[in-house]
């Protein structure tokens, strides 16, 4: 449907150079309708640019119930107080 927009290719190159990764060739010519400036073989490098560090994901170790109602049921069954975190947007999803 569309060809590679040069700014995106340059963006990807700039991102990777900035992080010490292998940059796709600047100005690479598209070979078909889909963009091919990013290389699937370099996904690990790309992922590291976005993903949080392990220490920032430690909250995933907690055994979360995912609703108020399921928390109440578990609290009743386990005879433990319920620690409830509620936000605009589900805190375990998009907030």
């Amino acid at each position, binding site marked *: 449907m569309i060809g590679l927009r040069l700014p995106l290719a340059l963006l990807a190159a700039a991102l990777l150079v900035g992080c010490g990764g292998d940059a796709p060739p600047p100005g690479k010519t598209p070979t078909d309708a889909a963009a091919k400036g990013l290389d699937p073989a370099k*996904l690990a490098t*790309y992922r590291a640019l976005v993903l949080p560090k392990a220490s*920032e994901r430690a909250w995933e170790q*907690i055994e979360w*119930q*995912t609703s108020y109602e399921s*928390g109440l049921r578990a609290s009743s069954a386990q005879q433990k107080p319920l620690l409830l*975190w509620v936000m605009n947007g589900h805190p375990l999803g998009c907030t």
Partner: protein
Amino acid sequence: MAGRRSVWSNPEVIAAATDFVVSSDEVWRLQRGKDAECLHFQAMANHGHYGGGGGTRQGTYVLTADGTFLASTNSLDAGSVLKVMQEGLAAWAKTNVESRKLPADWHLPRRRWETSYPDGGLVLRSFNADLGPDADRKRLNRDHAWFKAEEARGWLGADPKAGDEHTVSEVIVERLARFHLVDNVRGQTLPFAPADVSDSRITTTVTKRDGDEVSFDIHGTTKGETDGTWTLGKNDWTPTAKYPRGVTTEIAGRGRFHLASGRFEALEFVAFGERTGRTNLNGRPEADVGPARIGWVFELAPERPAERVAPAFVDIYDADWIVDPRQ
């Protein structure tokens, strides 16, 4: 956002949490709804840090199963949350056994959006963040993307062979571009309408076929752009003003699909691009409307309860297999 979840990544909070059942939920419905679950929450939260007045009930609460309020705060500070946990435990010790139980006749037939979780389909979790040297790395967000099995099959052709190139189905591309490749790094935002999406195409190229197992690469581009005119009707997201904005991305990834089982054994892709504009919800100040770099990682969501949380825009997903729990 990472900033909000940072409290729960604190080692002392994680250790102290073992004395509790820990749960989370979306507060918008709980604080406004009229069903038994919402009223149960409201009666409890009215004793909390925001009192019984109007406004938000966001925060952290300690309570018993019968709804007895024990302690609360709305803080991103681990020390404050630990203090509330300690206060809650002290108050719990003074409660009687009966207050720690749900009433015997407690029954909630209400559905949730999670009831439509696409078992047997494809569930991705996404992470997104600002990129570039000036990006605030403490800010990021996550979400889930749902596709039922028939939709997920659109990543590949009917009988994929090595070297085949396939245009990924429109329903997949549009769902990603409209609802997931949006600027919610700093907070929830607005989706794109179908007419806002253009110049978007994703292709898969089969790199290997071994019996029923198909390995493939992913390439593509997406573009969502609007002058801010809202065309998605009246719903919870309807803004009161125009918010011109746009997101363009380039996508790369790879996957492995098992034809006989119809399951993805692996799937991951990144989307790197540019954002412009802001919305009433997403926390971008006027000084941060771009153009600026933004990136996403999409990967298979692990099979566990916390990964069954519905997509942010599930209520306007345009998927007939999703049952609206409000009806």
